[in-house]
């Protein structure tokens, strides 16, 4: 599998659902046979993956909200990892 190109606008495949679980107080990524419990701000990052923002756009949006976090280095790696899992396209 190749690394996503620069103009990649990450989006969840239709079979995956991002949702907040009010019972457990956490964000979840729901797949056909699996539930991934999202830690920290992973749900916030995935919420921005709507197919219209580039990786750069996602990083900029997060940098505005979390000025002290290392989003420019961490977020592209995180998105790349999810792409390799098949959870982003």
């Amino acid at each position: 599998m190749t690394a996503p190109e620069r103009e990649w606008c990450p989006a969840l495949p239709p079979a995956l659902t991002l949702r907040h679980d009010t019972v457990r107080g956490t964000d979840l990524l729901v797949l056909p046979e699996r539930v991934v419990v999202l830690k920290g701000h992973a749900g916030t990052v995935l919420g921005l993956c709507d197919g219209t923002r580039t990786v750069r756009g996602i990083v900029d949006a997060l940098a505005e909200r979390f000025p002290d976090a290392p989003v420019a280095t961490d977020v592209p790696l995180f998105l790349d990892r999810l792409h390799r899992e098949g959870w982003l396209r």
Partner: protein
Amino acid sequence: MTDASRPERPAPPWALLAELTHACPLHCPYCSNPLELARRSSELSTGEWADVLRQAGELGVVHTHLSGGEPLLRPDLADIVAAAEAAGIYTQLVTSGTALDEARLAALTAAGLRSVQLSVQHADARANDRIAGRPSSFAAKEQAAALVRRAGLPLGLNIVLHRDNLDAVGALIELGVAWGADRIELANTQFYGWGLLNRAALLPTRDQVTRAHEAVEDWRTRLAGQVELIWVVPDYFDGVAKPCMGGWGAVSLTVAPDGTVLPCPAAAALPDLAAPNVRDRSLAWIWERSPAFNRFRGTDWMTGPCRGCPRREEDFGGCRCQAYALTGDPARTDPACAFSPDHDLVRRLSEAGPAEPPPPYTYRRPGAAPVAPA
């Protein structure tokens, strides 16, 4: 078990298996439905299912498998899917693929259906139809798979493995790839209910199991990143008990067609379970407070080698239904475990080799199973 002995609330369930009906056009001899099938006249109504799903969402259920029997035999299936969607629950249809057409699938997708799991009995059409006890069912499945792919839904194949198809495991995987499956679940037969009734016909040889497992591992390497392969272990041969249901009342619950709620689909066979029903009690009470769901929850109930075993939090003592089916006591260690004092019951069977010639199947049909003694 009294409430006082278990004051803490159990963690909420993740998944609900909805057996919408026990009616089915197929008659597979290893069916996971109970020997005593629920009558159609006893089935929950559309409104009752919608209420169950609403309660399930509030309780913390994230996934529901809409299963049966054949769930497509419920004319209100799209309404049930819509109710799950409204409750925030992700829906997967578990179907034999018969009676699925483009209009039906479009209605289900519009209602919010997310994914489809299709059963296949064999890679060879005639063998498939013979095991399923239904002519032309293979052709219907092939067509159903194409419809699901065209609709853009993820497709899983669910294949129960036994003496009659283990040698075709490579062909079954190739079939799954050709049909565009994202996931292929290869589940060795579990021997209770119909599977136990047909054990002499279904139990494979150790060689068959070994060869099939090697073939699966070989395919797993070749298909890495393309198709997910799941191998559900044959516990009669491994000497290791399976972590049945991820623990009793720990991860999921089953709602039978008539509203009976069970910790696993096979638990209907356990004696004195006093299985609760959604027609009498709330789903929250059933999950958290009912004696049936607390009976084998945690580790306090364990006996024999399980009690002091370092694996007790990993395999949860194995399968209660198997312990009962083989020893008559559901609280004993699962005989599949090599540490069980009853392990010889399983080892003798797996070492003796299969019956020759194989006995005919007792196909799953209402009234086909011998009536249990009173």
